[in-house]
């Protein structure tokens, strides 16, 4: 189901957590709310769920105004950060809870409930564990029980709060792939909150980047990575360098020289140049480029991260090189030029 959020505002005891946020969530999409802690992403998720009431603004489920509906009436599936499994119930009882507590006229028969619960347990690959208690499961298994429990009520929308936050790195990776598969199979409209940009980039159809209670950018992973629309998004998603530069004569100047980066149509004056460590080109000679002394380098997976000191008063620039090119360059002078960049005004 489509979910539309209109000019939503939320204050906690006069402290604003969300400022007039608007967002369209398409039916069947997997969308990530990404931001640092305190950016309002969890608040937005809880507002959609109905676990918090908005100070102002509206929430639509399809065409229906759900702003004043209770959490029960919204029929959502919520997966909590620490799963919130009912510890005194078995896995099977947890998964069937949402159906069992329905009023008699909307409740499926006991055999039907059991069948549905077993189907879901099979979907989340937990067949055979239905008699276990949550305390007898691993973190990843609990996570999957929580998801099965949320899906059992056939929710309009699935909401996941930091679904992988409490798991170790390897399990996280596996579950990420698995969640994507489940989503493709079941087609639930799914919103998940994360502070891990890698997770959002890998998993989501679209990413909502949030900061300080506002939406900074909404787009596909490619859009937000390749074309960030603000310094915050550029800095938050992926690695980036930020340099104080000057625009003069439709060219970017660093200190006293142009560096071979054109800036057509840009207004003259102070600016910030953003580029990613891997979007650079190493040059032999330097007639209009950046140059500096290699301060340190370290190996990260398939590449070498090199820190270049470009002069006092500037942050060191980090660039990525293939390991073979980076051999023995410590303390030596290196010349380079960004191949992709963005210019923002301070």
């Amino acid at each position, binding site marked *: 189901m489509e979910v539309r959020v209109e000019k939503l505002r939320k204050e906690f005891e006069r402290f604003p957590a969300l400022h007039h946020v608007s967002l369209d969530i398409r039916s069947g999409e997997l969308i990530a709310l990404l931001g640092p802690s305190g950016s309002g992403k969890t608040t937005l998720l809880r507002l959609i*769920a109905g*676990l918090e009431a908005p100070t102002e603004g509206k929430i639509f489920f399809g065409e229906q105004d759900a702003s004043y509906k209770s*959490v*029960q009436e919204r*029929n*959502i*599936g*919520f997966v*909590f950060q*620490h799963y*919130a*499994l*009912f*510890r*005194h119930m078995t896995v099977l009882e947890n998964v069937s*809870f*949402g159906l069992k*507590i*329905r009023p008699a006229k909307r409740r499926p028969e006991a055999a039907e409930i059991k069948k549905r619960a077993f189907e879901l347990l099979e979907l989340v690959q937990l067949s055979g564990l239905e008699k276990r208690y949550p305390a007898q499961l691993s973190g990843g298994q609990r996570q999957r029980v929580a998801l099965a*429990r*949320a899906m*059992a*009520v056939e929710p309009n929308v699935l909401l996941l709060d930091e679904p992988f936050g409490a798991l170790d790195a390897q399990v996280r990776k596996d579950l990420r792939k698995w969640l994507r598969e489940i989503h493709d199979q079941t087609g639930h409209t799914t919103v998940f909150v994360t502070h891990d940009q890698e997770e959002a980039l890998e998993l989501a159809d679209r990413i909502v980047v949030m900061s300080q209670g506002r939406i900074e950018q909404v787009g596909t992973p490619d859009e937000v990575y390749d074309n960030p629309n603000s310094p915050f998004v550029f800095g938050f998603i992926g690695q980036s360098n930020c340099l104080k530069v000057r625009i003069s004569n439709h060219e970017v100047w660093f200190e006293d020289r142009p560096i071979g980066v054109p800036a057509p149509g840009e207004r003259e004056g102070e600016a910030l140049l953003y580029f990613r460590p891997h979007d650079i080109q190493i040059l032999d000679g330097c007639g209009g480029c950046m140059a500096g002394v290699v301060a340190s380098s370290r190996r990260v997976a398939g590449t070498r991260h090199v820190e270049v000191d470009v002069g006092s008063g500037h942050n060191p620039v980090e660039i990525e090189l293939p390991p073979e090119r980076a051999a023995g360059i410590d303390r030596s002078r290196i010349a380079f030029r960004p191949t992709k960049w963005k210019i923002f005004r301070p």
Partner: protein
Amino acid sequence: MAHDASQPQQRLARVGKATTEKPAARWALIAISLLFLLLMLFLPLTAVFVEAFRKGLFAFIKALGDPETFSAIRLTLIVAGIAVPLNLVFGIAAAWAIAKFEFKGKAFLTTLIDLPFSVSPVISGLVFVLLFGSHSVLGPFLQSYGIKILFAVPGLVLATVFVTFPFVARELIPLMQEQGTADEEAALSLGASGWQTFWYVTLPNIKWGLLYGVLLCNARAMGEFGAVSVVSGHIRGQTNTMPLQVEILYNEYNFVAAFAVATLLALLALVTLVLKTLLEMRYSAEIAASRRH
């Protein structure tokens, strides 16, 4: 090499000893505590049983069979039977309010719940005499409708409720605070009503802590002397609870009977202690971490 490695180990051993007393000191501490427990707890408890059975089992049974004593036992059961369920409901309500909501005056309410622990039980009883006595406003008014509070069962129940209400609440507050609200939110998000959430999720989560609190509450409700003594009026066979009956019998030099009733209270204490220990052993994680009783 070997010499180098052994040196830090020696030093470690010496550091390790810093937190451990010498054997003599250790034994002295253990002996003092044991001696103290023997003198202050075990000997008096034994004395109660010895005195009760001084004139044989028959005298003991006869003493308990006395109509006034029997009525005192019955009254104690009635008072506890009303006061404990009341405090169970009140305790859950107060703990729920404090642990799961944010509101102004929360710290004040928390302090207020502890009030009966800091007020002398005699004062607690006097409060009700002032409220419902013949010179108060409420007393004569209720009297005109034939409702008797003081020197009757309602007064005993009120005094007992007042004195014992912190037990359940104080047991549950830290427990519920620690558990947070995520489980309840999960139940609500799955469509459960407020009542279903309480019944199927909250209550099972707190049941052992609740049982623990009820146990302590009951022990105190049955054993309460001070507050109950003030509001009871000591009418024989009518408003005397077990502890009051013990006092009366003792003052009449009827030692066998006094100690016979006392053994029942002592047994209640022992049973409570055993159940409490069992609960703590099996469900310590599910009972509040902080024990203040």
